[in-house]
């Protein structure tokens, strides 16, 4: 507790000194600064190093008179002062009054000088200031996977159109081997809505178009930027046949140099039930791990090399073996990342 008080005293003392230097009233006429204990200033002047118990007592009060925006909330040891702080001025009370603001007017003085109709139109244009509507198309992966016997390919792309808060997001991904039918292939379209600074809610549909029975799914999920700069997505899918699936994916850009970027990625798929016609068993069905090293000649054009490993899991893996398929596949990848 004592350490906490010391730190608090030091924190608060310094702004007090800064203001004193700035404002002659504060320094010369302390009577105007109600509730400020001089000990706070003394301590601040010595860099806070010599804070003693007296200083701490003084600072408890000085906080009231100081610093609206110094942000002293959550100040458990300093209790009441935290909330007081918000409405208090950033300078000593003596200098600034607390007159109420006038009401916001609703008239438009320019109308008295210029054509009113044109002003109405111009105001409408001004009122759109800050409204963004745009688009982007990012071809994240377009890659070739050389493998023994059966060389494969894969793609993953995302585009969006809309504003800052609401967008239409379209994604597609899939893979296959040359000379064989497509192994996986899907396209998703979702309403993407910004929930907070980092995360988006997604609600949409997914259509599969690979070999085997085509399925249509409803999609619900979130995607965004997690701490430590991880791009994360978590989605649930409910098909038109009623089967339910889950997918979690994450990737991270590790900047080795300004242009050489290593991107590890992981994807985990699970199913809530057996789906025999898709050769999927209940439980975890698949994990994919990747590492791609790209070189950004420009942001829009970055060739890469890497490795991709995927392994079917649990019942799904057993079904793959029954089909004579190796549930585990490791391949080198060579590809291109592009932006439009």
């Amino acid at each position: 507790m004592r350490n906490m008080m010391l730190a608090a005293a030091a924190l608060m003392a310094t702004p007090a000194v800064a203001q004193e230097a700035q404002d002659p009233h504060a320094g010369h006429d302390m009577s105007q600064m109600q509730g400020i204990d001089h000990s706070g200033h003394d301590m601040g002047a010595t860099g806070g190093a010599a804070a003693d118990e007296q200083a701490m007592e003084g600072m408890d009060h000085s906080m009231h008179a100081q610093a609206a925006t110094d942000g002293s909330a959550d100040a458990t040891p300093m209790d009441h002062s935290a909330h007081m702080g918000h409405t208090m001025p950033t300078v000593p009370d003596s200098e600034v009054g607390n007159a109420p603001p006038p009401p916001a007017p609703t008239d438009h003085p320019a109308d008295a000088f210029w054509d009113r109709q044109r002003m109405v139109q111009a105001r409408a244009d001004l009122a759109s200031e800050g409204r963004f509507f745009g688009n982007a198309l990012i071809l994240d992966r377009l890659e070739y996977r050389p493998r023994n016997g059966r060389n494969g390919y894969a793609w993953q792309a995302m585009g969006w159109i809309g504003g800052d808060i609401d967008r239409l997001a379209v994604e597609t991904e899939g893979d296959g081997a040359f000379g064989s039918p497509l192994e996986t292939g899907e396209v998703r379209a979702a309403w993407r809505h910004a929930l907070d600074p980092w995360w988006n809610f997604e609600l949409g549909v997914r259509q599969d178009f690979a070999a085997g029975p085509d399925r249509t799914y409803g999609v619900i999920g979130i995607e965004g930027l997690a701490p430590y700069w991880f791009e994360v997505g978590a989605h649930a899918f409910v098909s038109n046949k009623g089967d339910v699936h889950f997918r979690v994916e994450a990737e991270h850009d590790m900047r080795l140099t300004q242009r050489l970027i290593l991107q590890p990625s992981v994807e985990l798929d699970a199913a809530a039930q057996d789906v025999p016609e898709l050769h999927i068993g209940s439980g975890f069905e698949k994990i994919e791990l990747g590492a791609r090293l790209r070189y950004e000649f420009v942001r829009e054009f970055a060739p890469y090399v890497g490795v991709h490993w995927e392994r079917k899991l649990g019942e799904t893996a057993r079904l793959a073996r029954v089909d004579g398929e190796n549930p585990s596949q490791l391949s080198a990848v060579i590809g291109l990342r592009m932006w439009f």
Partner: protein
Amino acid sequence: MDKPLILNRRRLLMGAGALATMPVFPLWAQSGHMGGHGGHATKSGAPAGRNTGGVLSGESIALSIGAAKFGVGNRSGAAVAVNGSIPAPLIRLREGQKVRIAVTNTLPEQSSIHWHGLLVPFQMDGVPGLSFPGIDPGETFTYEFPITHSGTFWYHSHSGMQEAEGLYGPILIDPAEPDAAAPFDREYVLMLADWSPMNPHEQLRKLKAMGGYFNWQRQTVGGLLKGKDQSLKERLEWAKMRMDATDISDVTGATYSYVINGHDTGANWTALFRPGERIKLRIINASSMTNFNFRIPGLPMTVVAADGCNVQPVETDEFQIAIAETYDVIVQPNDSAPFGIIAEAIDRSGLVRATLAPQIGLAGAIPARRARPVLTMRDMGMDMSGMDMGSSGEIDLSKPANESMAGHSMKMRDLSLAPGVKAGPGVATISPMPADRLADKPTGLEDVDHRVLTYADLRSRVANPDLRKPSRQIDVNLTANMERYMWSIDGETISDGAKPIPFRKGERVRVNLINHTMMPHPIHLHGHFFELVTGEPVNRPRKHTVNVLPGGKASFDLTADAEGDWAFHCHMLLHMHAGMMRVVTVRADGGAA
């Protein structure tokens, strides 16, 4: 439409001698001309180059806005010019006169001109939707106003983002009486700007898709292994908060060429002097997105005016000039040698060198590139000035807040700390403990080994006109989300329905600008000067634009004496366009204007 004007580096490289015959740069912006003389300021001396060579004077002026091509080095693209030139013509007027300026718009889109820093009636201020309807294609609009004060100002479009495309020019107002306190023998205008061949709307689209699109100076694993920049521990702490300590400028030298009077380093714009002369440099930052560090290595500069208002002469070696600010400095080179005039982008992704030389053909030295700044906790709004009391002097963020921070909220988004802010995806951070940074050395100049100007060094040369104490105060929160590239005030944009900020005519109000972002914001109020709350009252510096340092705050006292509707915004063009803007209304008490 006029045939587009093509300016490119190849022609510039023909040499300064050839430049004299080129119509494309107005005379004042041409390299190697002899400058204006101090005699301008005398009552008898007629302004040099009246209505010739790109200097426009007198009571009746005509400007024509038109499409052009502009190029610097190998970067060329579509541009907007005035009377066929970039920068636009110098407008030189005298305090006490009246002026009529007829502006013709030959663009296929609406345009406008705002007289930055000039006190004019609001309906002549040039902001479409506030002051007037704007100037439609093919239309001529005549501005008419009295010139009531002197100094260095500028003009630019307030429509779309035409300013980024070249629509900017200088305004010099000579005082009614010559300024005896700051005599000079010769003077030059230095208009600093950033030029990109990429349309600013496309820049915005890229940034919306990727906040760090233009930043090629991020921290890398390679840098970590070499011991550069932050330690691993600091990097992890910042990564946890999803904050980038190298996010100094949004748009950088990756697309910008930096120019002085339209000339890049290679074109070496040159101002001539005779040794011993006092040279007045009127420096204007007309950039769309670039704050500059300005210095003339080897030559101390005496700052005599800021934003067109005289200040008590103060000598310095370097200053940061934020977008839309102007500084007048006097230098006195005694050696018959060239000096480099250096304007360095604050993220140090590029610079432009011009030259102050005793004769044409010389080039000032280009100083070695300085390391790109790395932001600190103070830029995050954590005032650590009282924290280095421990033995180590190190701030340990990994400790629980109630241990190292004495119970202060060190959450980076505690909205209870800024009650005026509307929460939403556009507000990524709230500065937990913003410090008053008016006396701080600006970003990247904290540790240089020479003098650096701060706002606290500026003292008005004349007493402030209104010495009343503010009757009230307001907090204006500058808010953003860099990753989504959203910019706002109090978490809202005008398109979100943000209400105007109302003032009574004649009232004196303290305005506290609180920066909740990690980027400096040059905040400009139209139609007024305000006094920065720094130093003793009476001679506080008067400005029209104040750069609020990252995570910090800046307060000014405003006498709302100009009735009407006024724009109030961040002068980073993309920030303004993305929503960091408000309308300020000034009305006589109890009635409409």
